[in-house]
C-alpha cells in the first residue's frame, strides 16, 4: 500500500530526453559549456549511453564522435577530457566505454594508438605496493580509479596487465564496520564508493570477499519514504543513487530489498518532461549526469521502452555482451 497517487507520475518522456541530449553540444555560446570542458569526454559517454538506452543510438553522429574521441588521445595512450587536456584515468575510461558503445575498437587500432597502448597507460597508474590506482601522474588515489581501470581493461581484454590480487586486497581494506565501502581505508561508507568497490570485485570474480548480508542491509536502508534513494544515512535522496545503490543491489542479487514501484515513481517525478533531461530531485535543474543515472535506474527496474543496462559496466547489456563475447 503506497501513500502516493501513482497517476501523478508522468511517463518517461523519451523523445524529450533524446532532444535534450542532442542539444547539449550546441550550447557553445554558454559560459557553462566552457567551464565544464574538463568533463567533455565524460559528458559524451553519459549522453551517448543514455541515448543507447533510450533506443536512439544514432542521435549523435557516430563518425564525428569517434574522431573527437581519438583527438583526445595522447602519446602515452591515455585520453584527456577534451583536445588539449592532459590524459586522466576517468576520461580514458570514458573513451574506452564510448568506443565500446560505437563498436569502434578497430578505429582505435587503425587511427588511434591502439588498445595495447591504452592498456599500458592505465596499468602504469597502479600503485604497485598498495594495489590502488591514481587518476594521473599527480597521484590522487580513489577507488573510482580502481573501478575505472578494471572496467576499461576488461573491455579491452587486458586485465592481466595489472595486479588484480593486490587491488582486490586494497578494496577489502576499504570495507567498513557498517557493511559499506569508502574512498579509502577508514573513510565513510558511500553508495558511490560501494558501487566502485563492488563492481571492481565483480569484474575480478572476487565477490566472495563481500559480506552480502551486511552490504545488502546497508543498501536497503538507502530508500527513504518518498521512494528515492540516498547515498549515506540521513542524507537527501538523489536520482544518481538510483544507479549506485540499485546496481550494487543487482550485483549481489538483492534488488528485492527495496520497493521498486516507489523508486520508479521517484525517478519519473525527477524528469523535466517539457525540455527533457532528469534532475537530482523533483523540480531541480536537469543535467546529463542525472539523466543517465535516472535512465539506468529505470532500466534496472525493467521500465518498458528502455534497453537493458549492464549493472557492472554501466553500458547497455548488448554492448558488453558483444565486447566480452558473451
Amino acid at each position, binding site marked *: 500500500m503506497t501513500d502516493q497517487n501513482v497517476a501523478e507520475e508522468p511517463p518517461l518522456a523519451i523523445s524529450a530526453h533524446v532532444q535534450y541530449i542532442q542539444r547539449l553540444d550546441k550550447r557553445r555560446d554558454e559560459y557553462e559549456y566552457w567551464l565544464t570542458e574538463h568533463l567533455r569526454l565524460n559528458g559524451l559517454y553519459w549522453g551517448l549511453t543514455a541515448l543507447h538506452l533510450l533506443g536512439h543510438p544514432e542521435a549523435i553522429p557516430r563518425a564525428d564522435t569517434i574522431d573527437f574521441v581519438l583527438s583526445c588521445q595522447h602519446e602515452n595512450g591515455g585520453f584527456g577530457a577534451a*583536445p588539449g587536456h592532459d590524459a586522466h584515468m576517468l576520461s580514458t575510461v570514458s573513451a574506452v566505454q564510448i568506443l565500446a558503445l560505437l563498436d569502434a575498437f578497430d578505429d582505435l587500432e587503425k587511427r588511434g594508438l591502439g588498445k595495447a597502448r591504452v592498456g599500458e597507460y592505465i596499468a602504469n597508474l597502479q600503485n604497485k605496493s598498495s594495489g590502488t590506482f591514481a587518476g594521473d601522474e599527480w597521484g590522487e588515489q580513489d577507488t573510482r580509479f580502481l573501478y575505472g581501470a578494471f572496467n576499461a581493461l576488461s573491455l579491452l581484454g587486458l586485465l592481466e596487465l595489472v595486479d588484480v590480487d593486490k587491488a582486490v586486497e586494497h578494496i577489502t581494506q576499504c570495507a567498513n564496520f557498517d557493511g559499506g565501502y569508502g574512498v579509502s581505508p577508514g573513510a*565513510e561508507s558511500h553508495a558511490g564508493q560501494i558501487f566502485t568497490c563492488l563492481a571492481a570485485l565483480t569484474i575480478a570474480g572476487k565477490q566472495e570477499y563481500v559480506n552480502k*548480508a551486511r552490504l545488502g542491509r546497508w543498501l*536497503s*536502508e538507502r530508500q527513504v519514504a518518498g521512494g528515492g534513494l540516498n547515498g549515506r544515512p540521513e542524507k537527501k535522496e538523489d536520482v544518481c543513487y538510483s544507479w549506485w545503490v540499485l546496481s550494487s543491489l543487482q550485483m549481489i542479487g538483492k534488488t528485492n530489498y527495496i*520497493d521498486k514501484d516507489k523508486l520508479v515513481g521517484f525517478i519519473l517525478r525527477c524528469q523535466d518532461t517539457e525540455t527533457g533531461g532528469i534532475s537530482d530531485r523533483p523540480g531541480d535543474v536537469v543535467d546529463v549526469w542525472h539523466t543517465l543515472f535516472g535512465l539506468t535506474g529505470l532500466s534496472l527496474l525493467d521500465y518498458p521502452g528502455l534497453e537493458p543496462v549492464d549493472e557492472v559496466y554501466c553500458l547497455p547489456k548488448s554492448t558488453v555482451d558483444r565486447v566480452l563475447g558473451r
Partner: protein
Amino acid sequence: MPPKGKAAPKPKGSEANKPSSTSTSAPPPPASTTSTPSSVPSTSPSTVSERSQQRFDESRPNEAAREKSGLSSLAPAEQVAWISSQFARSSAARARLGTKAQRELWRHVNEASLPVRAPKTKPSPGSWGKDRAGQHIGGYTPARFDDRAAKRITLTALEIASRAFKDTRERARKGLLDPLSKEPVVLAENEIDQEKNRRRQMAALRRELYGQTMGQFEQDPEWDDVVPIPQDEPEMALAAIAYPASYAEAISYLRAVMQKKEYSPRCLRLTEHIISMNPAHYTVWLYRASNIFAMKLLIPDEIEWLNEVALEHLKNYQIWHHRHLLVDNYYPSIADDADKVSQFAASERAFLAAILAHDTKNYHVWSYRSYLVGKLGTWGADELAAVEAMITDDVRNNSAWSHRFFLVFSNPAHSTPGTAATDPDPAVPRDIVDRELQYAMVKTYLAPQNQSPWNYLKGVLAKGGRRLASVEAFAAEFVAGLGEGEEVEQVRSTHALDLLAEIYAEKREKEKADLALRRLAEKWDRIRVGYWEWRRKCLDVEG
C-alpha cells in the same frame, strides 16, 4: 606631369581651406558655371562617399553628358574641353603630340580651367570599409570621418610608442649602451606604467574603431614574452567555435607557460586568476601546486589563501586534493618538531570546524580529515573532542560517527593494524569498548530512528568481540507489546526491532525473531519488505 605653374587657380572659399590636398582631390569647379556639367550638384555633400563622388564628377566635367548622349551632343567648346582633358591626363597620349600641339593643349586647359588631376577609380560606398557596428564608413559625415581619421592617427602613434618601449626594454635586457650618454640602457618604472596606460588607450581605440578586443594579458607588458597557445580545434562538428574571450585568453596563456614549464610569481597569479573564473578546472590546480613547490613558497601562506577559496566553493573537491598535496609536501619539514606539528594540527582543526559549519557532511572534507589524522598522528583527545562536538550539534551526522569509529578503532595506540573493520580486535581495551557502547546508547535516545548510532553500536560490539545479546535490554527499551495487537504494539525505532531480531536469532529464539521481522515487513518498515522477508527465510535455513 604638366608644368606646375600652369595648374588652374583655386577659387577662394571654404573648400580651399581644407587640409586635404591629397592627390585624390581635384580643384573645385570655378565660380562661373559655363563649363559645369549638369550632373554636378552644387550642394554640400552630407557623407564622405557623396563627397568623393562629387569630386570624381567635378574632375570630369562634361563626362556625364558625353556618356549619356555622345561627344557630338556637346557644344564645340565642351568637346574641345573634354578632348583636352583626356590628353592632359595621359602622358602617353601627349607624347604622340608634337611640341606645338602640346602648347596648344595647355593653352586650352588653362583657358578652360580644366581640372588636370583626377581620381582614377570611381568611388564606391564600400571603399572605406565598415565600422565595428557594421556601418559603412562611406556613410559618415565628413566631420565624423575626420574624427575617425584623427583616432586612427592617435592609435598609430601609440603603436609606434609601444614599439619604442619594447625596443628600449630589449636593449636594457641585453645590457646595451645608450649611444649618446654611453650609459647602460635602463627601463624606468614609470615607463612600464606609461606603457600600461598606453595599451589601455590602444585597447579602447581598437575596440572603438575596429571592434577588436585586446585581452587583459595582451595589455600587460609583463606577459609580452609569452606567446599564448589558442584552443586546438580539430576539424569536426563537436569542436569549438565561440569561447568566452577573457577565459579563453587566460587559458591560452596557461597552456603556453605549462608547456614551457615556467614556475614564477606571474604564473602563480595566473593560476589564481583562472581559479577565480573556474575553480573546477582540474589542471590549473596541479600546475599551481607545481609553482608553489618549485618556488619553495611557504605552505602555511598557501593554506591561508586556500581557506578563503574553500569557503567560497564548498562543493569543489580539487581544493581538498590540493590541500592534501600541500600537507604531504609540508609535513617532512615539521615532522621532527612536536610543537610545530601540534600547532599545525590546531590550525587545521580550527579551519575544518569553520568549513564543516557550512557543510557538515562534505565527503571530501571528511576524507581529508581522516587522511590528516593518520598523517599528523592526531588520534587523541583534541580530535575526539572535535568530532564529539559535531555529533552533539547534529546527532544525525553520519560522517562524524564514521570519523569517530575510525579515530577510536584505528588508533595505533590501541588497535591491531590490518584488522578488518568487522572483525574483533583484542588490542582494543575493554573500557574503551564500554565507553563507546555507552556513548552510542546515550545518543540513540535523542533520535531513536536515526540509523548512525545503531550501526555504530553493532560495529563496536563486533570490534569488542561481544555478543549482540549483551545489549538486548537496551534494544528492548524501544519496543513494547510486540505482536500483542495494533493498539498495544509500540516501536520507537525500527533499528531497535531489527537488532532484536538479530539478537533473538543469535540466541536461537526463532519464533521471537520471526515475529519481529514479520512486524517490520507488515507494518513498521514496509518499504523494505523484500529485505525483511529474506531475513525470515534465513531463519528457516539456520533452523
